Every structure is written in structure tokens, then in C-alpha cells.
């Protein structure tokens, strides 16, 4: 970009103009932009790659990751492995896919029920909604699910979970507002154990990962779970909002530190946000993306499909 900012004399006005036109509309899709770039060029040059970097950044992939991916592709170009501009896009896709596939495997371990799932995240990412959808899915598989109203802080959070309980036919364990979330979890765990539920899904209050006290509260919930059901929680899901930008990585780092994240749920992918930030998370923390949220209905939770996700980054 910098070169173009300084108006390097070599710049072909035709390409620059086309590029500017291409990026003028934020609504124009990434794929058409990339293809615009590719079509007019017969060979891959640095400028083209730089413009591709910009399009990756637009998908919230992040500068660092975008540069790493493009560096790898650049290497292929300089080694002569990649000469056709038309193959550029697929080379970038392959690199991104590679990052996503190097995460820990998403297969759940075989455990003695109840399986304990803790759902955490910052405020407003869609934890409670995700729990409702997850419960629906498990119920459809014929499992028994107990919901734990661990968000005792936010106004009417328990009521919200109770409505999801009704919709999915799941019991909800709750206490009064302001109660210790670990105490609610304790009740739920004891009850689920005694009554042999297959699953227990615990909601937690949204918290910013920078609040030390609140992060310690999650550690306590983990300990409580471990004490009642050794080896639990079996799954700690970080719910991440797809509209979140570069802060997502910081969230994943801090929540992994305190709550021991085992997987990610990427919500609100039905909007225009691409959620590219999870690639940086996968790269650094090797955290698998388990599900994606694509709407407000109980069916709107899909298993994560890396190929499809990468495709959607480019569409």
C-alpha cells in the first residue's frame, strides 16, 4: 500500500483505478475483488499480493495472520511453484485451511455421563442462545440435558435460560439473582449426577477477559465441577461473536488461561461479518472451532466446516 501512497511512477493507472473502484464499495464481495485483480494480470507481482492482504484484512483475518499466509504464498511464487494468477486464490485458501486443520481434534472423549459443558465468553456474544440451540440438538439426539443458570448477575438472564429450557424440554437449575455461580453449578452437578442426566450445560455471566476477579470466578467454577465430577468440565466452550475484530484473540488467550477453553463457538455468522479472527486463534492457541451460530432459532447451530468457512471468507 505504502508504495501506492507515494505514487510510485511504475504504477499502472489502469490497475490502480480498477482497484480503487473495487474497494470503494464495502458491499462488494471479496471474491469479486480478488477476481478483478486476478483477471487483469498475467503474472503475480508484489502489488497484487499486497492488495490481497487488504482483502484478507477486510475479513478480520488480521494483519499478522494475513501477512503470514501471504508470505507462504509469496514463497511459492518466488520458487516458481505458483505462476498463474488464477491459482493465487486457491493457494491462499489452502494456507488458511492448513492453519484451521492444525487445531486439536474436535472429537469428544468417551466419558461416563453426565458430560459437563461450561459455556463462557464476553458480554453479548450469545452464550445463552447458544446453550438453547445446543440443548435442542442434544435433545434431538435423545439425550437428557440439565441446564444450569450460572449467570446470576445480568438482569433476567435466568428467565432467558428458562424460556430456552421450556422450548427444548430441559430442566433448569437456578438460584436467586446475585447467588454464587459456583453454588448454582454445585446444585446442578449434584442433581445431574444423582438423576443420571447425559449432559449438563452451564451458562455463565458475560465477562470481559480483563477483569481479574471475574476470571477467577470461572476458575472457581472449574474447580467445583472437578470436585463433584472428576475429569469435568469435559468441554469449555468460548462463545465468540463473529463481528469481533482483533480483540478476539486476546479474549481466547485470557479465557484459555482461566477457564481452560476446549473449543470455540462462532456466533452471528448470519450477518456480513466473516469472523476471520478465529484463524489467528487457531494459529496461536490451536483451539478447534466446534460450532457456528447462524440465527436466532433453535436449529441455527451448525457444526463447523473449515472448507465452507474459508469459502465464505471469499464470498
Amino acid at each position, binding site marked *: *500500500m*505504502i508504495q501506492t*501512497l*507515494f505514487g510510485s511512477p511504475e504504477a499502472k493507472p489502469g490497475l490502480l483505478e480498477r482497484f480503487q473502484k473495487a*474497494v470503494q464499495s*464495502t*458491499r462488494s464481495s471479496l471474491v469479486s475483488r480478488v477476481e478483478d485483480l486476478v483477471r487483469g494480470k498475467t503474472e503475480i507481482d508484489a502489488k497484487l499480493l499486497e492488495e490481497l492482504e*487488504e482483502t484478507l*484484512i*477486510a*475479513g*478480520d483475518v*488480521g*494483519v*499478522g495472520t494475513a501477512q503470514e499466509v501471504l508470505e507462504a504464498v509469496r514463497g511459492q511464487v518466488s520458487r516458481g511453484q505458483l505462476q498463474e494468477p488464477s491459482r493465487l486464490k486457491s493457494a491462499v485458501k489452502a494456507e488458511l485451511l492448513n492453519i484451521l486443520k492444525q487445531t486439536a481434534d474436535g472429537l469428544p472423549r468417551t466419558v461416563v455421563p453426565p458430560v459437563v459443558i461450561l459455556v463462557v465468553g*464476553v*458480554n*453479548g*456474544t*450469545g452464550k445463552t442462545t447458544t446453550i*438453547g440451540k445446543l440443548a435442542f440438538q442434544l435433545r434431538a439426539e435423545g439425550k437428557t440435558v440439565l441446564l444450569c443458570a450460572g449467570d446470576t*448477575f*445480568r*438482569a*433476567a*438472564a435466568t*428467565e*432467558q435460560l*428458562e*424460556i*430456552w429450557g421450556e422450548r427444548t424440554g430441559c430442566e433448569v437449575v437456578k438460584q436467586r439473582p*446475585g447467588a454464587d455461580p459456583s453454588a448454582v453449578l454445585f446444585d446442578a452437578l449434584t442433581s445431574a449426577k444423582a438423576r443420571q442426566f447425559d449432559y449438563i450445560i452451564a451458562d455463565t455471566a458475560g465477562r*470481559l*477477559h*480483563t*477483569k*481479574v*476477579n*471475574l*476470571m477467577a470466578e470461572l476458575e472457581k467454577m472449574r474447580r467445583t465441577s472437578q470436585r463433584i465430577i472428576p475429569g469435568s468440565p469435559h468441554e469449555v466452550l468460548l462463545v465468540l*461473536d*463473529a*463481528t*469481533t*475484530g*482483533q*480483540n*478476539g484473540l*486476546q479474549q481466547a*488467550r*485470557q479465557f484459555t*488461561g482461566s477457564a481452560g477453553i476446549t473449543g470455540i463457538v462462532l456466533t*452471528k455468522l*448470519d*450477518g*456480513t*461479518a*466473516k469472523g476471520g*479472527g478465529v484463524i489467528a486463534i487457531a494459529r496461536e492457541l490451536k483451539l478447534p472451532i466446534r460450532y457456528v451460530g447462524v440465527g*436466532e432459532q433453535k436449529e441455527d447451530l451448525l457444526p463447523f466446516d473449515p472448507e465452507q468457512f474459508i469459502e465464505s471468507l471469499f464470498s
Partner: protein
Amino acid sequence: MRGAGQQHPGSEFVFENLSEKFQRVFKTLRGEAKLTEENMAEVLREIRLALLEADVHFQVVKQLLENVRTKCQGQEVWTSFSPAQQVVKIVRDELLELLGGTTARLKFAPRPPSVFFLTGLQGSGKTTTAGKLARWLQRGGHHPLLVSVDVYRPAAREQLAVVAREVGTPVFAGQSDARPVDLALAARAEARNKGCDVLLVDTAGRLHIDEELMAELVELRDRMEPTEILFVADAMTGQDAVRSAEEFHRRLNTTGVVLTKLDGDARGGAALSIRSVTGQPIKFVGTGEKYDNLELFHPDRMTSRILGMGDVLTLIEKAEEVIDRQKAEDLERNFRMDRFSLEDFREQIRQARRMGPLSQVLALLPSVGPFRNVPKQDVDDKALVRVEAILNSMTAKERVRPEILNGSRRRRIAKGSATTVQEVNQLLKQYDQMRRMMRSMSGRMGKKALSQFAASAPGA
């Protein structure tokens, strides 16, 4: 009980990294007297990276860097600057300008109740903001009524009811199966009946591409004619911020933005993106989970947050001291030209007061003029405060032409500054002596005194 919570040590790490990066660049540039395309490119490259990492939309970044580049090229390098400092200052000024210099105010309807909408994507913090805004309005002497027209999300209306109870404001419950428009209309009637002067309408979170729900908002707006349509946006939002903000604004003509969750460690570049696509001011920021945690937006704070903190800011401040020094040089010229007015005097005192503890400041002040009789070791801050108060109580005309200060004007000034006419007289006498001395100065002695004076200005 949820405490305010300390900042996690890890959160500072990001900033440190960033300022280290800047520092590295500055070091390589230090000592260079001129801005060249090469060294500009390096600073701008780092700034581009910083802005993108802060989630500023890439097109906004591009535009910004173009503006900066143009400005840099049109300017001579100030002798006392390093080129990098100058570039950063220009960047910062550009960011400040983009974020809007003035504090935005809420607009009320000529005939109450004023209707305010809270709109935005799911989970941006509309309901919490409604509670905070209700408290804000209460503190300003208003009587807000809250109503939730979110008939979609489970327990959304219950949530607002709990919020209202906690804040201590009335809430309009309405029928459980009512349509949003009917709820809002009924709430407005209720506000009139109850004598509430503001109706805060908490709308359902929706995607900007959800045609049905966006149309619902448009209908709601047309029926309710709100004076404020606030777009509530999460400070952690990434590149997509421009699309949602643009679309909400296009459909609704939003009047302002509330940026939430700023108590986290997100750098908040979305603020720049949203501001530049909607042109609407950011009116408030949410800085915590308590209902008091709503603050007016400060463009300067946001600028340093987005750009990176620590050393960068210090550098810019240093740069500004240099500018102040240039002002002092102007002052020196005025002396020479025998035009040392009370206006200049006040400017000097202001600069002096900005520098910190008075004992330190006085050590730097000239041993001439009003301060020559002041013992430098043992002086209280009030002396300087009083002098400034007296000067502030004068009109601009009086400061430029002190000779018009008759008895009546002096009495007014004394009253206005909570001092006595004697003190006003004393100040004017000292000023007069100072000016006469300046006038009589000539040759080497005069120059020495002048350079001494210039050296006393901040930044020297």
C-alpha cells in the same frame, strides 16, 4: 458482588509491544532533519499496522494515511522536531479531527416527551445502555420512562424491567403479545400521563441485513419521531463495523453512537470506522457494568487508545511543548516590538501553570515583571491563581488596551475575580513596570534579558 476488577496484567502487553515498535521506528529516524519519502513510509507503515490492529476499517486507514501524507509533504520540517514526531503529531491531529472535536449533546424535543431510540446489533449492549442513559438523564433532572419493544429475544422485556427497577425509573410493561409499534405508542401516551419528559425505547437487536426487522425500525421511527436514534456499538467490533453502522444510518438516519464495553482492552478502532461512515458523533461510551459507567465521549482519549499508548503519547506531548516554545518565541518578538499586552501575559501564566508545581515553575520565571518581588522559595499556588483570575476577569479588549481600565472597570474585575481593587491595581502597576523595562532594554543587556525570558518558557 462483582467488583470493578483490576486490569489484567496481560492486557498491557499489547500496548507495550506497540509503543516499543514505535520507539524502534523513532530511533531509526532520530537525527534526521528532513522528511523523506523513505522515512515517512516507515512511520506510516507502522501506523497503518497499529490502526489495522486496532480494528480501524482498512479503507479508513487508507484515507487517513493519504491525508497525512499530503499534509506532511506540504509542510516544512520544524527545526526542533524529529521527523517521526512530526508525522505522529499529524496523525494524531487527523484522528482527533475524524473523531470530532466537540462534545456532542442529546437533542430534546420542543414538546415532551422526547423519544430516544437505542438500536444496534444483537449483544451490543442496548438494554444495559438504556439503564445507564436513564440514570444519566435522571441526574440531569429529567424523568425518563423506559420501554422495551424487543418482542423477540426471550426475557428481553423482563431484563429491561429489572434494569429499570435497579436504576429506579418507571418502565412501561404493556401487553405481552403487543406489536413493537403499539408498545411504543402506548408507552408514549403513558409518558405524557405520568409527566415523564423522555421516553427511552430499547429496540430488539437485529442484523442490518434483516430486511423485515429493519423495516420494522423504520416504521417505528416514522410513528414515534425520535429526536435521538442512537446506534449502540460494541467497542470490540472489527472490520464489519462500517457495514452495520452504514446500513443502520442509511435506513434510520441515526443521530449518534454509543460505544460500549470500553472497559476491556479492545483498542476500539471501530469508533473511527463508524464515525467516518456515518458522520454522526459518538455521544457516550460505556465503561463498565454498573449503571453509573456511562461517560461522555472524549476524542483525545480515544485517539491515544486507538493509536497506542505510552511513549507515543509522551512523544506527541513533547512535540506540543515545542510548539509552545514557538509561541514563547512569538512572545519574545512581541517584546521586541513593544507589544507585550496583558493577553500575552496571561498566555505566559497559562503555560507556566500547565507545567506543574509552582515552586518549580517560579524557578523558571523571569526575575522581572510582576514576579520580581515574589520570594521564589516560599510561595503558594494561590498567588498565581489570583493573577490569572484577575486577567480572566478582564475583557479581551481590556487585556489588549489596559489603558482603558478606569475605576469602574477595575471594580468589576476585582468582583469578578474575587480579589480587591488594590490587587488589581498592584497587578497593573507591575505590568506597567515590566513593559517599561522591556521598552528601555537595548543592546546586549536587553538581549540577555530576552533570552533569559525565552528560556523560562515551557519546553525549553
